[in-house]
């Protein structure tokens, strides 16, 4: 079961990386969104999969009556989802502002920090 889901996680990663490598801002953004899902699913799967039984103790009991899904990766992933969302939002706004200021959505044309023809550094003291 984990084997098949591992392959699915691989597919998520592959899609995300393929998108991030393209030069268009929007595709990169979507790549980031998928990357978040890929990583979350990776953590979730590595904690082993178990069908349908949530880690909740029934009312009046002190321990779960049967083996439940692993609660630890769930706790990790829960916060990771929210954080990857806020990261995505930040990245989105960054890209949006960059597009507004630079007038392009092509990664290769965003050359403010590292201009195309950089001058030689000054020699001497």
């Amino acid at each position, binding site marked *: 079961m984990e084997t098949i889901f591992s*392959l699915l996680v691989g597919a998520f990663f592959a899609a995300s990386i393929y998108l991030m490598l393209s*030069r268009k801002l929007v595709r990169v953004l979507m790549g980031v969104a*998928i990357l978040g899902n890929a990583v979350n699913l990776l953590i979730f799967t590595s904690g082993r999969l178990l069908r349908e039984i*949530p880690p909740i103790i029934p009312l009046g009991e002190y321990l779960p009556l049967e083996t*439940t899904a692993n609660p630890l990766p*769930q706790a990790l992933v829960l916060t990771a989802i929210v954080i990857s969302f806020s990261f995505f939002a930040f990245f989105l706004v960054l890209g949006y502002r960059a597009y507004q200021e630079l007038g392009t959505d092509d990664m290769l044309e965003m050359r403010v920090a590292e201009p195309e023809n950089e001058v030689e550094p000054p020699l001497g003291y």
Partner: protein
Amino acid sequence: MPLSGNEATVWALLLPFAAAALGPVLTHRLKHNAAWILAVFPAFIFIHFLSYVPMVAAGQTFTVSYEWIPTFGITFSFYIDGLSTLFALLVSGIGTLVVLYAGGYLKGHTQQGIFFTYLLLFMGAMLGVVTADNMITLFVYWELTSITSFLLIGFDHLRTASRRSALQALVVTGAGGMALLAGFLLVYLASGTWQMSELLTNPDVLRSSSLYLPIFILICLGAFTKSAQFPFHFWLPNAMEAPTPVSAYLHSATMVKAGVYLLMRMQPVMGGTEIWMTVLPFFGGLTLVIGTYLGLRQTDLKLILAYTTVASLGLLVMLTGSSSPHAIQGAVLYLFAHSLFKGGLFMAAGTVDHEAGTRDIRKLGGLRHAMPITFSATVLAALSMAGLPPLFGFVAKEVLYDGLWHAHSGGIFWAFTGVVGNSMMFALAAIVAIKPFLGPKVETPKHAHEGPLMLYAGPVVLSVAGLIAGLFVASTGEWLVNPMTSAIAGHSVTKELHLIPAHINAALFLSLLTIALGSTLFYFSDQLRSFVDRTLKIIGWGPDKGFDQFINATVRLSAFVTRTVQTGDMVMYMRAAFIALIFTLYTPMIITGSWPSLSQFELVTLTEAGIIAVALVGLYAVLTAKNRVTAMVSLGISGFSVAVIYLLFGAPDLSFTQFMVETLSVVILALVMTRLNLQPSDSRSVASKLLDSSLATLTGLGFALTLMSVTQQPFDASLSEFFTAFSRTIAHGRNIVNVILVDFRGFDTIGEISVVMVTGLCVLALIRVRPVSSKNNEETTTQIKQEAKS
């Protein structure tokens, strides 16, 4: 605070740093007269170390130690013996005079306060070097002297030459410092101690170690760079760009002797070997001859003195390398004498420059009437430098000739080298003393007259000290010279010193030869100068030019590396990152051969297969989407399918969160895409699409395989079991995931909500911070919008 005692020493060693902090404040209030108050600090330290003299002369040593980094056995500790006492006395004594001198020399300079700060910081560092016991403490102080020297040489930072010299001194001595640190680390490996004092009690541990050769090379690199030995001599004459008080103090009397100090300190544990007694005299002798030879060419008083300083340092290294008690005593005497006369001469030269307006000996002459006090002091100091009786320099030269003559091998050769160097030194001393002051009066740029007390106090005190030390040489020897000689030789040396040689010996003869040769050289000094000039023109390239080429080459190399590595091509950066990631993912599996087995293939239910298929279709649709709506809808589909997977595998919390987040993501992505009118079409060439897709596939497969390997390993559920077992019983919650979040791992959650909070602030800042003009637009649009709504 008591005047003596070991705790007081620590306070005394910290005192210059306190004075350094006071420098600018006092100077702001009292102008140049602040020097009188600031000079009290080094004077106090001088008196403190003076109180050690009788005890040290009686053969006692002292250590003070404070814990610093106990894990590594590193302490903040000090060791007082004959060697450190004399050095500390020179540093603090000359320091007192130099502070006063700086008060007069830089009178009215707007930056005088900060100059005092640098100078006193240096003093503190130098005192630390000569008293440090722990090698790391020593190293820290050693580097601090390099840094303060950099600041002082570059004090006049508006001039290019100053900046160049400062950088040069820092690079050369700093690189040497690195070598020294490496050397100390090896010493620790070989001996197991960081303490000099412990090392001295076990003198053979280094000599018998297999690491001796690398230690020797590294320590020599540190010492040679600091003490300007050939081929690292070039930085010292360049350092004359610094104001004269700095030249007098750092670059003749104290800092440049740190390298000699180090060699002297290591002499008992490293000296006496074949390589020690060959390499040190060789480089020392070479430096002596080259230094004086180059000095003959100069017409600038300070440069002449600088080259003779280089030569003197060479002489000291040569003597230290001889390892015989005689030669070492010569070294100690010469070091002591040199600090007195060279410090005095530098200050006198500075006074001439200050009052007459030039330091060029061709433009000076007949100043003896205008500056009688400076003249007398210069003559006294120059006599000592030339090695004439009854001055201290004379005694030093007698003893060092004696030591060289009796050197353990090749004595005649070393003595001859000494004579050649010393006779040129004699000629240079004559030039410095005679050219500016005797002869017909020459019109100088400024109307020359005697400087104020602050300017002549230093030269007078130092040259008179040279005279007194010479006249009462027996006492000087007993109290100061012999304790230091003993410390360097590693055993007690009690040779009495006499001003008048007891009997005719080789040394006296060599002295006479030096005087005769030196007078001849002085007589032909002008012809010599042009001769030296011509020979140097033939050689052309020197280490000084080499330094420029080295620096330029470094800058060009770094520019080249930057251009090659940081092309500014975002796609290339990401490809590089993912290629590195591919290596990380596959390497462990390739090396250990532990590929996941595909035999544990467990079938999934129909629902699961369906949702996997939906996710894959969603992903594929995102990749190939040509327009916004398709792209966003398919992105949503892939996200929601993840949410369904969470639901199917017992994670309702995750599922709900994923649903909400996915909805919001698509909404805000839609907002941005619509507003910017962006299309998700792919504009890559087929070739780069192929490359990117293979990179992506490889990485994805790498993650898949790694995850398979991980899940096929036995599972350690102890943490999860702990949380499950105690969720209800001690945390009173039945939703284990929530209990982990808000109770068991609450601190993590605090961190995470802080991240969310900071992201919110960043987004706000990104949106709000704009150029002023567009901000006005924003306000008007908001107003229009509000009006439209209402």
